[in-house]
């Protein structure tokens, strides 16, 4: 199954243009080139790889959009899952084709012709252009899909493939050019040529492809593995409503889920417990864990708070537990140096998870050092669940324990004022240490540093406050930014 316009069909499904020429653009080697075109654009003479400027000259009303290769790959893998309705053995071929091994599966759909008809009808309904090729081998099917659609009758491969051009053998472009220069334009010509001189001239590739297309050399279809699905469900004959019952149900669901996670060497990061009520309503309890986990006994108590808050109504008759976000988690030796040496360890992770269910996991934070001499930028704040503790704090000069946005005070002159008012307190300076000049990082624009360089002073007051003041000599002014002690 070849989708010749997969990318543009995908884009046009979301936003149709009603027959206007349309193209997706991809930036290659600093130039915007056409990546995929729809049928009207191809009819106007545009082709893949053409630069956008040339295309605009041909066709001024061309509608364009940027291409998104990762999304196209995802779309193709969605199509791959859809294609398993025809047979279980489905692989991905290149960037825009699927290969299906329908051996022994065609009679379920009423024969080969019927299965092709069904595929075509469904693809047309979905707005995808599709070209089909059916053959004894993978190579024959590819050749037929790309060059002169059709189905090869079983057995006699060369009779059907013979008239097709040599490009149909999945060869590199320069090999194709070389073969054409020798007058070998069709597959039948190539098959009739003596093999040894051909191999000496072009290497083993053309002969291998020819053998694969004609069935002399096997080429298996490799089906993509389905991603493991971490979800379990429990349907109840009678609705339940008590918290303990729901927790017992969740415990029953957690065991197979954790066994599956263990088999895949994965750990759940986000778990969702969906409770379906008798009246059709549904609510979900989401649990975000501070570290990947697959230990049922540890996860279950963490659900308690969410389950208590859930509304049972007339009763719950189905529970569904799914690990919506999964991370790799190696099997660990219990009591090993890794388990014992980690800061805090599992008990701390559980605590962070429990606190996180109350105030949000991103609100439990830790400080990480950052490379900057600006006091506000010398650290960064990261959620504790998604970062590791880092060392390397370096404070060559005293820094305040508390830092706040600069608060202006009324003072003038380059020396700290003898008396000043701050937060409705009258303070007398007893001792001032400084200045320490800190220049702004001019390569990073920062609104807070608009006033230029700052001269920082440690000011001890007679009233007992120990403050961090700064003076901005370029635009005179005094500010309080922090407090020691």
């Amino acid at each position, binding site marked *: 199954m070849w989708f010749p316009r997969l990318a543009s069909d995908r884009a046009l499904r979301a936003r149709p243009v009603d027959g206007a020429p349309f193209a997706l653009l991809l930036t290659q080697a600093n130039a915007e080139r056409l990546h995929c075109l729809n049928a009207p654009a191809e009819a106007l003479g545009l082709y893949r790889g053409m630069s956008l400027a040339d295309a605009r000259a041909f066709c001024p009303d061309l509608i364009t959009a940027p291409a998104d290769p990762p999304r196209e790959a995802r779309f193709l893998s969605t199509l791959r899952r859809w294609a398993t309705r025809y047979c279980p053995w489905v692989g991905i071929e290149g960037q825009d084709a699927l290969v299906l091994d329908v051996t022994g599966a065609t009679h379920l759909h009423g024969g080969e012709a019927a299965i092709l008809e069904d595929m075509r009808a469904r693809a047309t309904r979905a707005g995808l252009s599709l070209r089909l090729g059916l053959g004894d081998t993978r190579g024959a099917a590819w050749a037929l899909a790309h060059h002169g659609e059709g189905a090869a009758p079983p057995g006699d491969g060369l009779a059907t493939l013979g008239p097709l051009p040599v490009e149909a053998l999945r060869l590199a472009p320069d090999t194709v050019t070389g073969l054409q220069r020798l007058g070998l334009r069709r597959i039948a010509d190539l098959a009739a040529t003596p093999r040894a001189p051909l191999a000496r001239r072009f290497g083993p590739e053309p002969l291998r492809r020819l053998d694969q297309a004609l069935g002399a050399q096997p080429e298996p279809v490799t089906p993509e593995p389905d991603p493991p699905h971490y979800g379990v469900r429990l349907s109840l004959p009678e609705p339940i409503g008590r918290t303990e019952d729901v927790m017992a149900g969740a415990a029953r669901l957690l065991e197979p889920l954790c066994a599956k996670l263990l088999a895949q060497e994965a750990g759940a990061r986000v778990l969702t417990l969906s409770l379906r009520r008798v009246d059709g309503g549904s609510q979900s309890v989401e649990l975000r864990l501070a570290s990947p986990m697959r230990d049922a006994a540890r996860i279950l108590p963490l659900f308690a708070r969410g389950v208590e808050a859930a509304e049972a109504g007339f009763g719950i008759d189905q529970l569904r537990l799914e690990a919506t976000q999964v991370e790799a988690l190696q099997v660990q030796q219990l009591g090993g140096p890794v388990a014992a040496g980690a800061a805090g360890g599992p008990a701390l992770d559980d605590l962070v998870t429990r606190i996180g269910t109350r105030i949000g996991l991103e609100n439990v934070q830790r*400080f990480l050092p950052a490379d900057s001499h600006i006091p506000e930028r010398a*650290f960064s704040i990261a959620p504790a669940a998604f970062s590791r503790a880092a060392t390397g704090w370096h404070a060559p000069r005293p820094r305040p324990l508390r830092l706040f946005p600069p608060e202006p005070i009324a003072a003038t002159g380059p020396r700290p004022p003898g008396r000043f008012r701050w937060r409705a307190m009258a303070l007398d300076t007893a001792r001032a240490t400084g200045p320490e000049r800190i220049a702004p990082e001019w390569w990073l624009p920062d609104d807070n540093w608009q006033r230029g360089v700052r001269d920082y002073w440690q000011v001890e007051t007679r009233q*007992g406050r120990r403050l961090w003041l700064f003076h901005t000599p370029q635009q005179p002014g005094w500010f309080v930014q922090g407090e020691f*002690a």
Partner: protein
Amino acid sequence: MSANLSQCFPLRRSRVHEVCGPGATSFAAILAARGTGPVLWVRQGWDHQALHPLGLARVFDPARLLVAQAPGQVDALAVSEEALRDGAVPLVVTEIVQPLDLRQGRRLQLAAKAGATTGLCLIPEGMGSNATETRWHAAPRLAAEGEDSTALRWEIIKNKSGTLGAWDVRWDDTAHRLHVVPPAGERPGSARAPG
């Protein structure tokens, strides 16, 4: 004369203590430096007086610090109760802005007892709870000329199981030690009436 500081500091475990005054942050930081293991600092998110890790680095390693930003006082108390009861964090520092009633203070005490952890509440002055084990007042002290500027004055202004006292202390940030400066003819409680 004051009692020996080592009888009261580091603070008794399995209890919740309070500290007020302008030096409360450094009191909490020095207490964290005396212990080991992670420290949970429960703050209220709207408070813009953020902790500065480079300042804390002179007292203890900020890698040990976890900060919980609670949206309000009720959540802050719930978080610190949870952490005290759990026992995974030996020291929980909570910033309080409204006075605790007897029930809230008692709940924190019971949680600390269950988890064998130490709790410390940073309170505004005069907003102490009756359930607290000890209440301290910490303030920077203006040291004589030539001394370094880390001198602090710590006073116990409430103690359920001991005597009151006042000490002049100094944090040595190269040796990471707390020095008690001998009192210069000062009697405990002469600077402020014990509360």
